[in-house]
């Protein structure tokens, strides 16, 4: 630590060059921060203790096939099941059929299954007593400037009402907000009463899209899932039950090979970055050969010189990297807003920061190693003579 000012002075010996290099590193880590935020949000969807305690039971045939409502009562009797809720896909769209919004028609106890979704008691009370009531996610409410008490028209792209019109009217009774990131997408969902939906359309006929089953013990989840699927084995409505975590993981996998694409970009970026920084460090050490020789002459040991050059390159990468990831967390909301709601990027989490710092240290060491090694092996007499 006492040599810090020495390292600092060496680092900024050529201001222009160091600043240019730092900007390159900032760019690389800015990219890293953004891409890693996307990756973790994909990985984290549904991956929480609550997600492991909840099972989703859907039709084995396909996710658009519905199940009989009577099945819910049978699932409740399976040992290990705490409670059963159910939901249907409503296929809502706002203002334009192509502007689709995640909207579900849900049973009365649906929200009880999701303790991580925050809804005020007052809103829940009003919801229970309002037939046409809906609870909307925080992000949606902000985006469309909805407030409690507004009446909103939603088109269903699937379910017309009995008179053939597709326009449904709903009253907003509350706003919900996800307390932790794993349930984050509830900020962009509309929940309505299943009963109102089922009675309003001739197309549903009392069927259920999928069941949400809470189990008493997460370790028993797989056993319970098998027991639930056994109920309807060989019937015309076979089911497939998975934990919520497994279901969203396989759903995300279908969306795209995000990991692969992100990984290959990261690889290209870091390879480029290594080259740039490595080049700078080599130049810096080459320029200072005689200075390093002077340091050795006045008594710095070989290892101290090695450590100082390594520290210099570490410091260089860390300064750039921290600024880069900091910028990423600052810029991400801007990108999300700029894409007009097409992209909703998450913020940079602690995991990304840790991974980023680990990468910075690794890159700093790799880049600094060769110049530092050369500085350590420097022969004083030769270096001072400029040979």
């Amino acid at each position: 630590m006492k040599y810090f000012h020495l390292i600092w002075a060496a680092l900024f010996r050529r201001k222009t060059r160091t600043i240019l290099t730092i900007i390159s590193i900032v760019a690389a880590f800015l990219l890293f921060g953004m891409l890693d935020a996307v990756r973790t949000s994909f990985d984290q969807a549904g991956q929480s203790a609550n997600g492991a305690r909840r099972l989703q039971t859907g039709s084995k045939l396909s996710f658009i096939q519905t199940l009989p409502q009577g099945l819910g009562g049978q699932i409740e009797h399976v040992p290990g099941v705490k409670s059963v809720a159910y939901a249907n896909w409503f296929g809502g769209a706002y203002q334009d059929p192509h502007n689709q919004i995640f909207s579900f028609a849900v049973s009365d106890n649906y929200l009880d299954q999701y303790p991580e979704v925050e809804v005020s008691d007052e809103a829940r009370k009003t919801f229970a007593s309002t037939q046409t009531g809906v609870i909307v996610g925080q992000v949606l409410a902000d985006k469309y400037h909805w407030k409690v008490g507004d009446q909103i028209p939603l088109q269903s792209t699937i379910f017309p009402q009995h008179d053939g019109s597709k326009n449904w009217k709903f009253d907003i009774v509350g706003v919900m907000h996800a307390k932790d990131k794993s349930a984050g997408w509830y900020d962009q969902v509309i929940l309505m009463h299943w009963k109102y939906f089922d009675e309003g359309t001739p197309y549903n006929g009392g069927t259920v899209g999928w069941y949400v089953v809470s189990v008493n013990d997460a370790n028993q989840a797989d056993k319970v899932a098998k027991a639930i699927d056994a109920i309807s084995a060989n019937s015309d409505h076979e089911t497939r039950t998975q934990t919520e975590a497994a279901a969203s993981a396989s759903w995300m996998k279908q969306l795209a090979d995000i990991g692969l694409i992100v990984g290959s970009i990261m690889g290209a970026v870091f390879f480029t970055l290594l080259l740039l920084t490595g080049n700078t460090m080599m130049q810096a050490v080459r320029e200072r050969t005689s200075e390093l020789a002077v340091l050795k002459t006045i008594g710095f040991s070989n290892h101290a010189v090695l450590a100082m050059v390594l520290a210099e390159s570490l410091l260089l990468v860390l300064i750039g990297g921290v600024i880069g990831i900091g910028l990423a967390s600052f810029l991400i909301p801007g990108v999300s807003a700029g894409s007009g709601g097409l992209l909703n990027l998450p913020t940079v989490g602690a995991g990304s920061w840790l991974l980023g710092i680990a990468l910075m240290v690794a890159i700093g060491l790799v880049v600094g190693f060769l110049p530092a090694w050369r500085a350590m092996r420097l022969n004083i007499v030769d270096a001072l003579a400029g040979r």
Partner: protein
Amino acid sequence: MNFLFNLGLIVVLAVFLFAWAMLPWQAVLVLAIAFALWMVLTRRGRQAASVTMVGVSTIRQRLGSSSVVIIGIAGVVGVLVALLAMGDGYAETLRKTGSEDTAIVMRGGSASEVMSVMDHDSVVVVPQAPGIARDGQGKPIASPEIVVAANLPVKNGGPDDEGSVQLRGVGDEAWAVRPNLKIIAGRKFTPGMRELIVGQGAQRQFAGLEPGHEVTLGDQVWTVVGVFASNDALDSEIWGDADTVASTYRRGSSRASVTVKLTNPQAYDGFKAALAADPRLKVDTDTTLDYFSKQSEGMSKVMRIMGITVGLIMAIGAVFGALNTMFAAVASRAREIATLRAIGFRGVPVVVAIMLETMLLALLGGLLGGLVAWMIFNGYTASTMAAGSVGQLSFAFKVSPELLWQGLKWALAIGFVGGLFPAIRAARLPVTTALREL
């Protein structure tokens, strides 16, 4: 004063970059020819050419730092081209689907086929509309189809890894409205049997879709009897007999859509108007071409934004890398450049020479990056849950000449910015100071 000069330079640079982004390739060619002529015909130009030759001949001694510029820019161009190729490939697959002389009719207000439910009466009424082409027996060519999702095991996935694929139930007319669809292995399914034919894209993604194999849909066993290819979005679907699919999925006599072949593209407006005026129907009509293009809009836009954002950030990094290298190169050649100026070479040839050198390195980098992206990604297939469908769409990355050209333009722009400041600095450094530098 110095600060103001640099500020002015940056403004000029911004204007230049904007114009550069707008330039078509013909204009670039004209510029290049004009520049070459200047180098050959004028005295200044010839001076610039000879200084450039000197600079280029010393690149060999600066191989390490020069290759940093090349590889840095290659990285930017490679990533940019790959990302844009992904967006283009996706959009292209959906754009190629459908044609102007076929129309798709769905229940009104349905965003996509999967969401549409048309009852039997509507399905019977649609083919009676005017403007539909007729087959040899004088029957209108209209294909009522049903679209549902099926769960199938994914290739190379775990035992419980299932993906969703779009299953289309069709009748005999389906082949007539899609003449580009060919059976490439096995045979067509037999009506009334639980037999499937699978698109080549679906076959790539899901396990066990080889002809002769059996797959389980729900509690029923179906046999795969053939593979078809149409080189568009339909490649990601699997097809079966409409009535059999409808009974499996308990859809009765309803259908999702009716696709009709029109006598010619001009007949579309009349056909659409006739359906809109029919009081028995509540339907939306679209040409199949428009329908599929609309489905791809949102996703293509997302991919484009992503590509440009990532490319921009990387380009900024590369610009500073190039600046660094060129500043170092100029500094190490300070005496050489000062000597040139002392014996009478003016500022312009010196600036041009250094700029040219950087642009040359950038060009090499751009070519390298484009080549690598083309080798790895051209025809690389990926898949994603497509908007407006319930199955995965498999599509191939498409590295087109336009994209490669765009990548080269980016590379040259980076080279230009990275060379400009060091070049100006070299030309403005007082000769006496530079000569004393070691």
